[in-house]
């Protein structure tokens, strides 16, 4: 397993497995601490500028709900990136799945039909990505770029450019306060469950260890007996599945399917994963970091909107905060 750590990836030479894991845990904790610090600062700013609104239960529920959809996508993308790949097609898959699930007569079959179609389209697109990349001749960037274009095109064709309004009450009910259990919206529970399962899979299963190994050094993993191709296929399937779940959540959230759904999710998800400490070249990353990354982004958005900042100011400030967050991490890592 020690062969899985490629030289030059970390600042330390590959130590034996156990202590390497411990070292990694310490390092990642520092990353998380810096993200939590950023969240704390944002909360402080929110508490000072909008004391009544920002820390209200309603607003915290809102922040978590808005984070949920992109959060689920980010969990899938984190796996793919740790495994040494990239998935640029997540936003388009979310769009296609949401349109498909709301158009193809599925609304007749109620919530089961909508959910089933969302998941089916997500997994189907993930399968195509995975086959092209793992068993075909394509690099992840190109294959998922092609999926990005064609899935969005298909979504546009299916929906005829129209917004598909959802009329299934059992779907819509999941998004209103009546459905909250102990104050937690169902979408947030789905996000929490996906994150928890993702964390367990990455840290407590062979599949997770193989993902890290394949992303760290594919050739060494192959020599160590890991079925690298199958592993890659499964990672894209996983990402597709997360997109399917996210599409269903988006249908609940917006009460509709639209081909513009999931716009730029790929960039948001990758950014959140990177800020959370996932290495873009693969082999390292955590689910906790990604979840924190998503929360930082969503909190920023919420904070700006509460303070009625216009979108141009929001963009500039957001860029600055991303840079600051990464710089803080770098600083902590080098000490």
């Amino acid at each position, binding site marked *: 397993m020690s062969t899985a750590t490629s030289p030059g990836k970390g600042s330390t030479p590959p130590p034996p497995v156990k202590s390497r894991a411990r070292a990694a845990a310490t390092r990642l904790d520092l990353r998380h601490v810096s993200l939590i610090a950023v969240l704390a600062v944002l909360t402080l700013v929110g508490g000072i500028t909008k004391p009544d609104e920002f820390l209200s239960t309603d607003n915290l529920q809102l922040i978590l709900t808005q984070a949920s959809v992109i959060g689920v996508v980010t969990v899938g993308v984190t796996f793919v990136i740790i495994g040494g790949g990239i998935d640029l097609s997540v936003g388009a898959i979310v769009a296609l799945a949401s349109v498909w699930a709301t158009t193809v007569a599925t609304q007749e079959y109620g919530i089961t039909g909508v959910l089933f179609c969302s998941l089916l389209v997500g997994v189907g697109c993930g399968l195509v990505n995975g086959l092209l990349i793992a068993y075909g001749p394509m690099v992840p960037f190109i294959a998922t770029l092609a999926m990005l274009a064609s899935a969005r095109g298909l979504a546009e064709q299916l929906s005829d450019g*129209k917004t598909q309004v959802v009329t299934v009450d059992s779907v819509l009910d999941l998004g209103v306060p009546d459905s909250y259990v102990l104050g937690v919206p169902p979408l947030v529970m789905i996000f929490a469950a996906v994150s928890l399962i993702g964390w367990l899979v990455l840290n407590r299963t062979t599949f997770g260890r193989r993902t890290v190994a394949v992303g760290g050094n594919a050739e060494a993993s192959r020599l160590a007996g890991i079925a690298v191709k199958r592993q890659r296929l499964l990672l894209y399937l996983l990402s597709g599945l997360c997109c399917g779940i996210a599409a269903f959540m988006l249908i609940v959230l917006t009460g509709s399917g639209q081909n513009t759904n999931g716009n730029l999710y790929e960039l948001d998800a990758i950014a959140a994963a990177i800020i959370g400490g996932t290495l873009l070249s693969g082999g390292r990353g955590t689910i906790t970091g990604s979840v924190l990354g998503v929360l930082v982004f969503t909190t920023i958005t919420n904070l700006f909107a509460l303070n009625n900042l216009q979108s141009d100011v929001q963009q500039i400030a957001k860029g600055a905060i991303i840079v600051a967050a990464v710089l803080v991490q770098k600083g902590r890592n080098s000490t």
Partner: protein
Amino acid sequence: MRENSHTSPFASRRGLLFGSAAAGALLATGCTSNESNDDEDTGKQPANAADKPGKKVTIGFAGPQADHGWLNAINEQGKRRAKEYEDVTLVSTEGSNDTAQQIGQIETLINKKVDVLVILPADGKALTRVGLKAMRAGIPVVNLDRIFNSPQAYRCWIGGDNYGMGLNAGRYIGEQLKNKKNAKVVELAGLDNLELTGERTKGFDDALKNYPNIKKVARQAAEFTVESGQEKMSALLQAESSFDALWNHDDDQGVGADRAIKQAGRDEFLMVGGAGSKRVMDAIKADNSVIKATVLYPPTMAASAIDLARALGQGKGVSGLAELEIPASMTLYSAVVTKDNVDEYLPIGFN
């Protein structure tokens, strides 16, 4: 999390493509017809029944990529209208939001030597040169909605009134709230990097100046998508614990805004939409939600553009006007649709 998308080329492209989704009524579009304007745009009746077939005209139509309700309706309206005329042949290019691609498509139409061109440019400024090229080649251009930079690039412009949309939305809200002290108004705008969004907001602000008791307390820009509408409206509802009126620039993003309002369980305000979708008109008619009105920006302008192109090709004027030629420009009226007149406008509501 979506703000960063404003800077993306993808987002701005979408912005451009959907950029003109807004409203305006047909009152001004007498064009070649003196028939009832209501019937004219349902597409069910033959256009200009009184108008006898004339010289054969080939019209080139370069429309937008239909990835959104209003733009889709634009393409449908144009094509359906052309079919109604025996003497019109429509040659349409595949819709595109990409400036370079659309220039190529228009050049193809010029090379085919169509008699008249109808162009809804992905970007009016960027496509001005190709408009000039067509005019120099002797092909008159009917410029639809997004206006070219130079009057030399088109023979006739027809489009909606973004400033007027804001103005009429503001006036309607002003009249509803004029007797209320310290009334608060909230604005959910469209894509901020589009000029038209600025025009709509300016019209709205100008109208509100006539009502000193009303204050606009918050404004957030969404992206003309359901998802952004839901997100930005949720935040607005959090920021303002109570207000009296909301103007949402666009009915499509309004699907998301409605969801956010329902999710927050709020109903203390009245809402005015924009563009005139069928869904919103149905809601106005049902009168069981916060939505009480919408300001129009009808896609039927595409059908009128075909009428104008045909008249140009046949060298006619507009019936009902004394002029021998069709006018150089026509701005549609952004009528306010309320419960009182919704039946009149329902046939032109788009999906």
